[in-house]
């Protein structure tokens, strides 16, 4: 597979490490959320046959975390974003 890195252009997927569902960025605040909420966050995942947003890490590259939108059936990648930009857009801060 080839992942079109938003900064570095097309890169072979072998340079990356896969983490999983991009919902892992929606971590609750540990000072306000309880066990139930963290359990949902950490363990509950969709498993779509089709479009899937997922986190990839450019370990053999610039160490960017990326959000890759990939079709799990065809492997077509329709969007690649810096995870930091996505997190900021979601209002994540410090």
């Amino acid at each position: 597979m080839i992942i079109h890195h938003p900064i570095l252009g097309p890169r072979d997927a072998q340079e990356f490490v896969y983490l999983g569902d991009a919902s892992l960025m929606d971590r609750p605040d540990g000072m306000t959320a309880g066990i139930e909420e963290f359990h949902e966050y950490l363990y509950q995942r969709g498993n779509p046959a089709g479009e899937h947003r997922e986190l990839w890490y450019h370990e053999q590259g610039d160490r960017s975390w990326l959000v890759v939108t990939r079709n799990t059936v065809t492997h077509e990648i329709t969007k690649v974003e810096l995870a930091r930009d996505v997190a900021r857009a979601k209002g994540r801060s410090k």
Partner: protein
Amino acid sequence: MTQSHRISGGQVDRTKTVRFTFDGIPYQGHPGDTLASALLANGVRLMGRSFKYHRPRGPISSGSEEPNALVELRTGGRQEPNTRATVVELFEGLDARSQNRWPSLRFDAMGINDRFSTFFAAGFYYKTFMWPKSFWEKIYEPIIRRAAGLGSVTRQEDPDEYDKGFLHCDLLVIGAGPAGLMAALTAGRAGKRVILADEDFRLGGRLNAETHAVGQASGADWAVAAVAELAAMPNVRLMTRTTVMGAFDHGIYGAVERVSDHLPVPAKGKPRQVLWRIYAGKAILAGGATERPIAFENNDRPGVMLAGALRAYANRWGVKAGERVAVFTNNDDGLRTATDLMARGVDVVAVIDSREGGELIPGVRHLRGAEVIDSSGKLGLKTITVRQSNGKTEDIRVDALGVSGGWNPNVNVHSHHRSRPVYDAGIAAFVPGEDGPPGLSVTGAAAGVLSTHGALRTGRDAAMAALGLTGAAPDLPEAEDAPVRVSPLWFVHHGKGRAWIDQQNDVTVKDVKLAHKENFTSVEHLKRYTTLGMATDQGKTGNVLGLAVMAELTGRSIPETGTTIYRPPYTPVAMGTLAGRSRGKEFKPFRLTPSHHWAKEQGAVFVEVGNWLRTQWVPKAGETEWRQSVDREVLATRKSVGICDVTTLGKIDIQGTDAGEFLNRVYANTFSTLAVGKCRYGLMLREDGIVFDDGTTARMGENEYVMTTTTANAVTVFRHLEFCRQVLWPEMDVQLISTTEAWAQFSVAGPNARKLLEKVVDQDISDASFPYMGAANITVCGGLRARLFRISFSGELAYEIAVPTRYGDALLREMLARGAEFDPIVYGTEALGVMRIEKGHVAGGELNGQSTALNMGLGKMVSKKKDSIGMVLSQREGMVQEDGYRLVGVKPVDPKAALTAGSHFLEKGAAAVAANDGGWLTSKVYSPHLGCDIALGYLKGGDKKIGQRMRIVNLLAGLDTEVEIISPHMFDPEGERLRG
């Protein structure tokens, strides 16, 4: 030996002779021959025995689709089984042998299987060897495997090298027949970067096997000119002997280049084969088509071949497959074989055409509406039995028969992404369907366009379209454009004998009928029940035939019946090619520590730790057993001073105005209160509350920290921190960089550690100015920048000192030389382990990915006053149980008793069953200070059992001994020594 069957013409170099042997018998051929063409030239038809029935077999094809003529090449480490004689390029001294026969090819004792063929029909194994169950693995399977088989592998190491490479292009053209050459010419002339790959050693594809003219020249000569033009273009890369074996995601293609297979041994410095990964902007599949046979009784005798192959041997290699030849066809293309052979003076005794109509070939006995219904000849074809249109049967004496059932487009690569081929009734074959790999177009015969003109035209047009070329299209040379005229005939209805469909796996029409009878009627069931198409040729000649027979039996149409699809690789790929250079130690190279050379000089014993090679212990003269060395290292360190290379620990520089807060979040304990110039032990959890890693982190400046991780987790911790920084808290002002490779780091431990370090450190490091848990940027040896941390893993007065990596070796030697008066020793990972277990520090055995801080006795470190990774879920009910596992120390009541890690805790008198299990020992060493084995372990409710006696049981090791549960801090529990 004379080449009795060599005729005029062809593209072999008759000025040179190549000598080779087959089953020990010497033969001669010419450069340009394949093993099969050379053997046929010498009148040898019998080349192998079949998989299951050990039937005598010869080649049916002239290419990579060959199911029968599998041979073993070379000897020793280069021995290679299951190569197809039809694609093995002849070279001087080639040593080839038949396989799957004993004692000889002509007399094979296992031929007895053929007599019992009724027992070996499809599903036989499943039905017969069901009972008794225990017999399967030990008795049935070994016997069956011996009887049914391919070649043998050598047990010796392959002496050759295999490589991997990466290529990029605008257009990859797969196959260099007329379509591929025209596509490459079109793209090449437009200045595009083109790769043209073909599995053959001679480019031109089918043009080399035909007599058609292309333009003013013969097809073969036109190919030579086209190749010459392409070779002169700097933007075109021609890859002969290169099989594009698979289409992968996003325009990536795998290709195997056989660099040296055609040579006795590879040239110096050259690999045997290269596995290429080709990144293609666009790709064109011009892989041609494969002829399929017509099944009739005993159609597998040596001498029965595909008509196109018979023609190829005559036209390309100047070889006649027999003295008296017949052709059996259901289509016009089969007739070409008869006319081509006749033109070369071969005696064509009959053309058996299953069709009633069509044109008659002059000058030959052309039987229309006739069928071949049987053949005879023990080790090779002697006669065929023909049923004429009037129903009369007649035996005709022939020693070669060309069979043509039509041509199947080579859709293989196009279906690698699960695209289903669709049936085209016009050519009675499957053509590429929808949803092939994006960017891949199919041209020529592979697309079902079976004329030369059609190939040239679609090749050009596909290249224009794929690359979006807008200029004038190149002119096409004139070429034949004959229509396809085929009347489907899959198998001949006659008699009760066996008619072969898949010759490599010995699947017959009968087997398909049996599958149908037992209701395995879907193509996928048919394939698995009969093993149709599951041999190494993936059923290139047999698949379509098999499903057509099933269609006829079920009364469904062929499109309704459907077809199976292909997976990579297109043709078999050797394991060594896939491994490339990743072989032996090169699969996972060692990382060496800065003290490695010093340690090697001392005769140190090394141990693999992750990718690292670390010193395990350093034996002194006279030490004959490892424990002597390790005990000495421990005692010497605790008595005076020892040095250990700890460079392998992960080191991460963390800087930024939010660095302190960042550490607060990633560590379970508090870091924001750490003063500049101080270190603190940090405990890192996973989000699920399990301990991830531990280490010390030092605050080197206001906004500057240095974190250490365990050796094993150096990479994953860094990855995790980047995740936290970029994804969870994107606005934090924190920067990270791994400095594991930048600093050589040594632990200096023991009562004389400070005195030794004072010999190299430029600054004052007295207890007052550099107290316990201090950290500072310093200089050593008169100005070299260094870092010093006063931390201890051993429980001794200890420091870790770091210098830029390239000075690590020098620093070690300086410390040993300048501190000689203290008798310093260098200790390895074993002594390190002894001392940390004596001190009760957790490491690998305890940081097992299943344990919480509470389990480790570190529960109080998890601060609930701040948010940190894993804090919330570490409080889950199941993880905070009062009587859960707790880290304890263990020593045997009898000091001579040996403990074993992994052994289990049991109460005295309790039966050794899982229900009574109290926990297990995680790490065990011999403590020279306590004079007995000691261990750490996780014990249920262990914190309340200190001082109690239990049993340690290991049924595998025969261990059952009484132990005392003690505090894990077994040495200097008050920590007086490390503050000294």
